């Protein structure tokens, strides 16, 4: 199938109820469903598997009933293991298939770390590009309701250290569909992280199959005072903060890299050149995470564009507590982003 022939898009259309393709708003989960459905339809080499994929709930509605349309050979439930499941996907990819492996939570990917890090990420390099592994691995980050330490981790920061993987974290329904399709089209292993709180978010989603290229950030809001780089659900939180700050006359620029590997650092650097201030809002632990990397790259490459210390809005370095009084203190959102912005705004420019 000519996956390379797919229409490439990158800017989210404005919703316009009279404008044909742009007249449709879709849930994030429906956008993912559509992307999977279209991928299965488009290329018989694509198949999808995962624990409970054929449940009535169907992985938060993103797979519901697809096995009826494509058969249990192409959409199938799996034994309860992760290491073999991912290794099997790799083997099937070697043999010419394009598997999609679905996991409920990134926490469970740790069982398959060897297959992902020692195998998937290295196969192209070790064999000089001769054996492509077009495998996409999906996992849904969970939050809240006492899910506790083993069922709530946002682990993109771990995988992000590993060369050879591509990592997408969509924040809108539009991006979700386009990045999903790019991920399936890619001939390399792709990790695709969804955040559970995004499933009901809506945006304008064209019906046709379109691909959003990896490594192209989206400026989700323009502004001149502070640059916020945010991923996944933190994009939503950042936009919320930006709205409130605008009321106080502070114009925040919100950049969503959409993929953290590859990372579109140029768009971030251009923004920091303009604003002089950088905040990175991440879903994951502070130490050693994606936020640290963005700060390192920006300070290495554009130190003199920064007028004050960069700042991370990222999780405290702790396992997730179960109790809701602790969860409230643990998770960060619009309020914390707003505070961070006010703090860097207060720092006077010294350049």
């Amino acid at each position, binding site marked *: 199938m000519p996956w390379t022939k797919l229409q490439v898009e990158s800017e989210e259309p404005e919703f316009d109820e009279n404008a044909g393709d742009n007249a449709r708003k879709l849930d994030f989960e429906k956008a993912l469903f559509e992307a999977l459905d279209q991928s299965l339809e488009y290329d018989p080499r694509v198949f999808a598997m995962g624990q409970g994929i054929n449940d009535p709930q169907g992985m938060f509605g993103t797979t519901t009933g697809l096995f009826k349309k494509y058969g249990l050979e192409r959409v*199938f439930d*799996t034994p*309860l293991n992760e*290491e073999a499941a991912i290794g099997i996907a790799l083997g099937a990819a070697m043999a010419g298939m394009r598997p999609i492996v679905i996991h409920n939570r990134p926490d469970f990917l740790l069982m398959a770390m060897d297959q992902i890090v020692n195998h998937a990420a290295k196969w192209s390099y070790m064999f000089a590009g001769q054996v492509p592994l077009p495998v996409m691995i999906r996992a849904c980050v969970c939050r809240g*309701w*006492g*899910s506790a*330490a083993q069922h709530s981790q946002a682990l993109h920061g771990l995988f992000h250290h590993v060369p050879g993987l591509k990592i997408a974290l969509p924040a809108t329904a539009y991006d979700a569909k386009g990045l999903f399709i790019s991920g399936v089209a890619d001939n390399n292993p792709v990790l695709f992280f969804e955040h559970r709180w995004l499933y009901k978010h809506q945006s304008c989603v064209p019906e046709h199959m379109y691909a959003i290229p990896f490594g192209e950030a989206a400026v989700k809001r323009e502004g001149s005072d502070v640059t916020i780089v945010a991923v996944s659900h933190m994009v939503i939180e950042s936009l919320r903060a930006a709205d409130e700050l605008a009321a106080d006359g502070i114009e925040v620029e919100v950049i969503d890299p959409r993929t953290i590997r590859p990372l579109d650092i140029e768009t971030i650097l251009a923004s920091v050149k303009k604003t002089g201030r950088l905040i990175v809002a991440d879903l994951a632990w502070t130490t050693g995470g994606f936020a640290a990397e963005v700060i390192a790259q920006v300070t290495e490459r554009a130190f003199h564009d920064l007028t004050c210390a960069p700042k991370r809005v990222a999780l405290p370095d702790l396992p997730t507590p179960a*109790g809701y009084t602790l969860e409230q203190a643990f998770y960060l959102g619009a309020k914390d982003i707003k505070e961070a912005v006010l703090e860097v705004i207060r720092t006077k420019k010294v350049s």
Partner: protein
Amino acid sequence: MFLEMAKNDCAQFSVPNLTGEQTAEFLRKMLLIRVTELKIEELYHLDEMKTPVHLSLGEEAVSAGVCMHLRTEDAVFSNHRSHAHYLAKGGNLGAMIAELYCRETGCSSGRGGSMHLVAKEVGHWGSSAIVAGATPHAVGAALAFQMQKKDSIAVVFLGDGACQQGVFYESMGWAALKKVPVVFVIENNFYSVNSHLSVREANEYLYKRARAFDIPSCRVDGMNPLDVYASAAQAVSHARSGKGPFVLEYVVQRWRMHVGPGDASAQLYRMPEEFTKGYRRDPIEEFIAHVLKEGLLDSSRVQEIRTRVDRDVGEAFVFAQNSPLPDARDLTKYLFVE
């Protein structure tokens, strides 16, 4: 379907010789689990227990029957469906309910929630919500007991799903090699969430997995408390007497949804006939009928146990509901132990 499965390949045991006290304690354990779970279910919709609960209703005989043979110094290792294991081993009821209510008085001080219970004082060192995650812990504890020349044993509870994780096989291999006192207890309820075993395994007789390592094993009707009791006696004494590991597969019925309240028959999309009338068995009612018939307990004693359990459960909920919540200022506490 389940009834047939339960007979299928299940080992036969002669009726165990239970004293009146043992009978009463066994019944109390099962009722404690039953009444606690029903109460959780009853109150869950109030949204005060903000943690996912995996109920063991229908499966009570296994936890209770196995733990009847354990000493305080023995260790149990549990999973996401953890309440029954914790209670059967003698974990504090109030501390468990408080944990479900995410209170500072919870057994894990509200840090763990329903899937992460702990009761150190009775040999329960914390349960894991990673399927099969605690399996090697049990082997490690058993190895420690062996090194320490103790006659304690370790018991780990695994679901049928957990038997599909590689670490279960690695753990059996270690256990056989080191001949450590560990009993692997498989609670085969035929489901992992909503996925029936038949879509996950070619061979549903999980006790056969142990054959790979020459570990003695058998399949038992887990809905029959007497069979559970008798089979566990055998496995525990095997392990305790230095003969090495044992694998018990109990065929059971999970009455509820995978997580949260709700009748499983409404949701399980495969083989719902398992849950239609005639197939559902109640281990506790079967047991009570048996003990009354055999005169092991009289009906007033049974009533007394029921009353005591009801009271204990009621008190535990009151304790939990009135307990303080963790203070957000203590968020970073406990990352490390001293």
